């Protein structure tokens, strides 16, 4: 007997794009990604170019989103901000999924390791996300790398939990027992067979963690414990813009809307994935 070669993921993608909202979310996401990728060509100004005489101008033809207190073009900064947010989000997802999958697979498959691993996971999850992230960034220092590391540490337990739960279910499936009987090595069972079959819930978690990471980085930068304030991320823009909220509300509005669009489109896509999952696996989440 062989493991099912048709992973649910392929079926998923097809069903996905038949739902309009999800499609809309995916399109917005792609647009943001493209803007971020081609930022230098898409933006009329450098994000750090200061022109003091043009400071605090409201949105107009020459500056679509207006200028900030140092005369920098807000539109250009928002677009470059997308680079930071998407990069940070993607790296956080990469690290936390890798770590979480490893932990979760091991915990779900090896009964004796399950207890200790999950205790540590539970302990990590007893801290509210932002709180733990703040504490970690305080230790490591405020830089983009450390923010990514801190957030990855915060979200790894979540992935681990989901992976473990799914592993527990898939582990009991007949084909796994058969594979074992056939003498397939444990590593192969874990990383090929089980992993293949839990790919969907991991994918869903990944998209949500992306959204959380974008929101969390904005929050950390707003508090002043995230990336260094001279980097043009959406969070730092709102942080420095808030003191001018009365006379220059555009400094706060546009980065905020960008965050909402990014987080929203990610969640819509993630939701779409989730709704179309195999119900058996969905229950396990």
């Amino acid at each position: 007997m062989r493991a099912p070669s048709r992973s649910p993921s392929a079926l998923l993608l097809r069903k996905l794009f038949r739902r309009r909202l999800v499609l809309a979310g995916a399109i917005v996401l792609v647009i943001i990604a493209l803007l971020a990728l081609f930022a230098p060509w898409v933006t009329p100004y450098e994000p750090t170019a200061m022109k003091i005489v043009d400071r605090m101008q409201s949105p107009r033809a020459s500056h679509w989103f207006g200028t900030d207190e140092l005369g920098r073009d807000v539109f250009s900064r928002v677009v470059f901000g997308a680079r930071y947010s998407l990069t940070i989000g993607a790296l956080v997802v990469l690290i936390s999924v890798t770590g979480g999958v490893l932990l979760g697979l091991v915990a779900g498959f090896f009964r004796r390791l399950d207890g200790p691993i999950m205790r540590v996971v539970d302990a990590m999850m007893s801290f509210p996300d932002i709180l733990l992230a703040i504490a970690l960034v305080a230790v490591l220092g405020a830089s983009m790398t450390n923010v990514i590391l801190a957030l990855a540490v915060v979200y790894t337990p979540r992935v681990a939990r989901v992976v473990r739960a799914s592993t527990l279910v898939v582990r009991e499936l007949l084909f796994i027992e058969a594979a074992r009987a056939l003498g397939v090595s444990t590593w192969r069972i874990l990383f090929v067979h089980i992993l293949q079959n839990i790919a969907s819930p991991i994918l869903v978690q990944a998209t949500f963690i992306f959204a959380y990471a974008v929101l969390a980085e904005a929050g950390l930068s707003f508090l002043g414990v995230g990336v260094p304030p001279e980097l043009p991320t959406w969070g730092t823009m709102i942080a420095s813009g808030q003191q001018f909220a009365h006379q220059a509300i555009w400094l706060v509005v546009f980065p905020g809307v960008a965050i909402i669009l990014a987080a929203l489109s990610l969640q819509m896509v993630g939701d779409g994935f989730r709704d179309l999952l195999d119900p058996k696996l969905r229950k396990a989440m």
Partner: protein
Amino acid sequence: MIRAAVPTDRSPGARPLHAALAALLLAVAAAMLPYASGIALAAPARGGAANLAMIGEPQTLDPMASTADLVSIIMQHVYEPLYTFDGNWNVAPMLAESLPAISKDGLVYTIPLRKGVKFHDGKEMTSDDVVASLKRWMEMAPRGKAVAKEIKSLEARGPGTVVITLNRPYAPLLAHFALPSGFAVIMAKDSIATPLTQFVGTGPYMFKERKPDQYVQLVRFDGYSARSEPPNGYAGKREALLDELRFVPVPNANTRVEGSLSGQYHFADLLPVESFSRVDGKPNVKAMLTAPFGFPYLVLNTKQGPLANIALRQAVQIALNDADMMAAGFGDPKFFSVEGNHYAKGTPFYSMAGTENYGRGDAKKAAAMVAAAKYDGTPIKILTSQAYEFHYRIALVMAENLKAAGFKVDMQVVDWATLIQRRNEPPLWDIYITHSAVLPEPTLTPPQLGDGAPGWWSSPAKKAALDAFDAETDSAKRGPLWGKVQEVVYTEVPYIRVGSFNSVTARSAKLDGYVVMPYPFFWNTGLSK
């Protein structure tokens, strides 16, 4: 004084008329009496508690342990110095009875102390308290340490006199006692400890409670011994009209603005200049523009790092576009001025010496100087904080100016507490930014004119120029001597004065009697109903 104008005409027929007239006038005068006395007194009402929004939470309440303005603003109500400044920035006596008797050679100052001045614990102030306090100040505060070098001996002569003997004539001595930053206050001898846990002073207000991040609460000291002269600047009679002062830390500038407008705060310090138009002209709030208030300045590390090389410091100076920096920091030109002379035209210390190096923003020339100095590419560590928003914005422009001149830049934005700690360590920074109030006595600020302040500026030229300046007690001759000091500063570039700015503070329309001074004070102020 109301005098009834009684005619002395004694013509018989006129007497009853005169009497009637006199009576009428007397009656009118009597009726006027209450109004007259009301006008004569015209002092603000007594009572009430004032909420005073400050820029943040003071690190400590020990005025000798910190040069932060915030500490001085609060604790100047609790403690008093021997001498203080009046409204024209002349030195006036406070706890001293009068100006000291100075010996002919200018070396011995005999300071008479006031009698019957009570501390908050009820004990009377004596020369022991003064000597102990000044000794502590000379050990702790940077200006104190600098002054200590000039002092040969400091001792009590009986309970009511203190004698200071100098090593050489030192004109700024009394001014140093009077400056609130790193304050030379007189504390009760028994309360002296480090760290300071009891705040026993002679001021019109007593320390009551401190809830960090919420408020510092001071209440009226009923046993306060006031001077009799009319109030003038910080000097003269001080009366605690308000029952209670609450200094509230409000780090968010916007919140300070909104709180003033809504009446939540009776006073708000250091509002962002952009908010002036919002606060000005509102019925319940008065916006106050203090011009000039202060100057932002950059301190360069002359001891360690790439800027220990004087040629590179000079390159930095040439690269900076001070006009842009001031505009970035303060926005509207009515809130700042851009000029290289440290003192304005018309003041005794005005000088244009060295100002050809100011505000050039000449990236090309600076780049040439950088290359000639064989800059090795070590990044210049710029230390700044967002606690004062204009610091951060100025630093951003500075970074761009430096990059244009070929420097590599490493911006480090930290919280204020970390900054004041880091600036004491030579390996940790190359330039940091701060600001100071504009003060009439040149050697009072910036601290780099003293010894041992961050930046560690020390050179024969500095010593020569400052010695000459300090020794000269004739005020007519001091002006040009200051010009020499200014020139050395422009040549050796231990610090760069970026420009002058005006500050915006706001007070409630109900806060009567408030006098605008750089370190806001609230004695002689009251709340009307």
